[in-house]
């Protein structure tokens, strides 16, 4: 490493270990760190604090994964990727996986040689308008100017929605959330559209949030989830089941606080199997036998992560909505651990 870091400056290298098509888990173990692709800055999902550390919803999942593999939630290298180079970085092996607010679509799953292994956030595209426009439904937006962030599926959904409803509009594409928000606040556009998750956050950070409303229409499905390279099933399993464990932990009432206690054994066989006191699910993944205990201990269960990073007690103030557990009317559901 020391040498290659230097050689890199001479354009000779940056020569890291070779990437083989299979065996990402072995590579990760050999490296001692998970290379987790995140956004270069998305409010609530991944951003850097004033100490320069990454924090956010997606970041917590990276940490849980690292804890499951290494018992150390900090064993993560965060690779900041733009929407342009995320898939290239993944396929070239620069990142082991993406937790990068990436929408699961057919063509990305099939054509781009990537695989989506779960959904950590069910999103959908929504609209926000100033209250004084008197608009109550997205169908009244004929002729409006719409601020969108470029390079995302948002642009396509917007075009589809207006075309289907026979309305015209003026798109105002902007590079990033903060730029778009500044333009919106100055009235350069009537409507702000993006994933509903981000929309609530943007509204909360406006000068006068009460002057804006979010319209009831959700015009698209935006399932966001972890992405891995196509064809490495062992690694897929590790990522998929670590995330499932966080959801299952919430279903079963396992929290950051009580996981150590529960890991010693309980009356509930589901908890016992997941936490390793009955059977050895973790070793089937080639991980330490307490892998999920470590993951939950590091970040808490799905609900705790949500509340801590983007939930109603944070400035972003998102409601669980679709992301509530299936038992509570949402869609988050974990296949059984057995």
């Amino acid at each position: 490493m020391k040498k290659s870091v230097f050689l890199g400056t001479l354009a000779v290298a940056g020569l890291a270990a070779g990437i083989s098509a299979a065996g990402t888990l072995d590579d990760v173990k050999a490296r001692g760190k998970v290379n987790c692709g995140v956004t270069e800055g998305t409010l609530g999902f991944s951003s850097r604090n004033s100490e320069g550390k990454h924090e956010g919803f997606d970041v917590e999942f990276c940490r849980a994964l690292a804890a499951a593999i290494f018992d150390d939630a900090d064993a993560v290298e965060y690779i900041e990727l733009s929407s342009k180079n995320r898939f290239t970085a993944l396929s070239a092996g620069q990142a082991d996986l993406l937790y990068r607010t990436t929408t699961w679509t057919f063509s990305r799953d099939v054509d781009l040689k990537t695989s989506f292994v779960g959904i950590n956030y069910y999103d959908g595209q929504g609209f926000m308008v100033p209250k004084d426009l008197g608009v109550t439904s997205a169908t009244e937006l004929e002729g409006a100017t719409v601020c969108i962030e470029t390079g995302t599926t948002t642009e396509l959904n917007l075009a589809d929605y207006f075309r289907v409803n026979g309305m015209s509009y003026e798109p105002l594409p902007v590079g990033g959330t903060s730029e778009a928000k500044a333009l919106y606040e100055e009235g350069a556009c009537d409507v702000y559209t993006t994933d509903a998750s981000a929309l609530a956050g943007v509204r909360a950070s406006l000068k006068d949030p009460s002057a804006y409303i979010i319209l009831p229409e959700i015009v698209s499905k935006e399932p966001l989830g972890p992405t891995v390279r196509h064809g490495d099933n062992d690694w897929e399993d590790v990522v998929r089941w670590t995330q499932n464990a966080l959801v299952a932990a919430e279903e079963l009432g396992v929290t950051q606080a009580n996981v150590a206690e529960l890991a010693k054994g309980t009356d509930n066989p589901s908890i016992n199997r997941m936490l390793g006191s009955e059977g050895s699910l973790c070793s089937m993944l080639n991980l330490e036998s307490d892998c999920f205990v470590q993951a939950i201990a590091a970040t808490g269960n799905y609900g705790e992560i949500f509340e801590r990073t983007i939930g109603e007690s944070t400035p972003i103030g998102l409601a669980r909505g679709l992301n509530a557990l299936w038992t509570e009317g949402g869609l988050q559901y974990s296949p059984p651990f057995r």
Partner: protein
Amino acid sequence: MSDLSYVRTEMLPQKAPPATSVGVVGWLRENLFSSVGNSALTVVTGALLLMLLSAILPWVFLGIWDAESLADCRAQFAEMYADGRTYACWAVIADRWDQIMFGYSFGNLNEGLYWRPLLGLALILVALSPILYPNVPRIMYVATAATLFLYPWLIWGGSIWGPLTLAMCIIGGIVAFRFASQVMITAFALPVAIVVTAVLIMVVMGPLSNGLASVAALELQPVPSREVSGFVLSITIGIVAIVASLPIAIMLALGRQSDLFIVNKLSTGFIEIIRGVPLITLIFVATVLMKYFLPSHIDLDPVVAVMILVTLFTAAYIAEVIRGGLAALPKGQYEAADALGLTYWQAQRLIILPQALKISIPGIVSNFISVFKDTTLVSIVALNDPLGISGAIRSNSDWNGIVWELYGFIALVFWIFCFSMSRYSLWLERQLQTGHR
């Protein structure tokens, strides 16, 4: 002798010029109000200037330096001014200035590491001194050479033995060149020396540096390339691009001046292609396409990839500057070299290039300024230059929504760097001119 008493015999003392043409009044009359049109121009521009300043200055100087978040700033303003006026919220700079300047690698993540980029910058200034003051002792060239190896070490960290053994390999290459040029012409000695250096680097360097490191580690905390950010990133890309591009640029310039048809056309083609496309497309190539062009087992860091492409970009531009220098030399210099019986390479090395490079220095400095400014483009591909960091700061919920303060601060820092360099370049131009006359 007739009586000429009506003629003065002594000179009259000079009369003071009229009050309207000296002092403040005279200066004003001459420079501001010399005609009706001029006076009108003065009044109009003066009024515009005052309007602009009265809009900007209060915003700048009544700003708040002490707050925890943008919301806090707004609350403080609401408390201070009942009419809802707000001014700058400089608190964001107070909170994050170290990230903007030193990046995540040397910012508050690693409190104790400020000295590394600062020492690096100081080293660069020392290294530049042979150019700054043409008659410093020759020992300073050693410092310049040492900086080439120490600066990357300071930025990326790791063991000192890596750079040192690399330097040894390169010295080995130079020695090989000396020996080879005894027995063959330069055109062949040069490739031989390059091959020797490459072999030394590939075969000897690794074991040697590892061996030495096991004896005495002497290492700095390594910093991964992607963590090199902020102004440190801009400066590093700029410096690497200029230094690494110089040899390439000299080769390209000589190639473009060459009589050899294929060499000439290849150099010209390369220069024109690179100069014909925007830098942003080359940065796309670096971050998106580079991986396709290399064997799949090589994983090139995006920062390094960007540096390579920016180097090629700079080389094409500097090649044109050097070509201008070559063309500006009087033809007599070439003819004199021929008359002395020097070979092509001897003539270039001893007579042509020293003079051509000297007159090219101001052009090279202004190219450095533009490369330095152009490094902001890497923010478009998610690297953390100052603009990229400003985006990252705004994606944190504390500072979401802050625009002008960050742009203003970044613009100011860029301005200070670029302005002083351009002044230096002007000064140098004057120095070099007098050298010629």
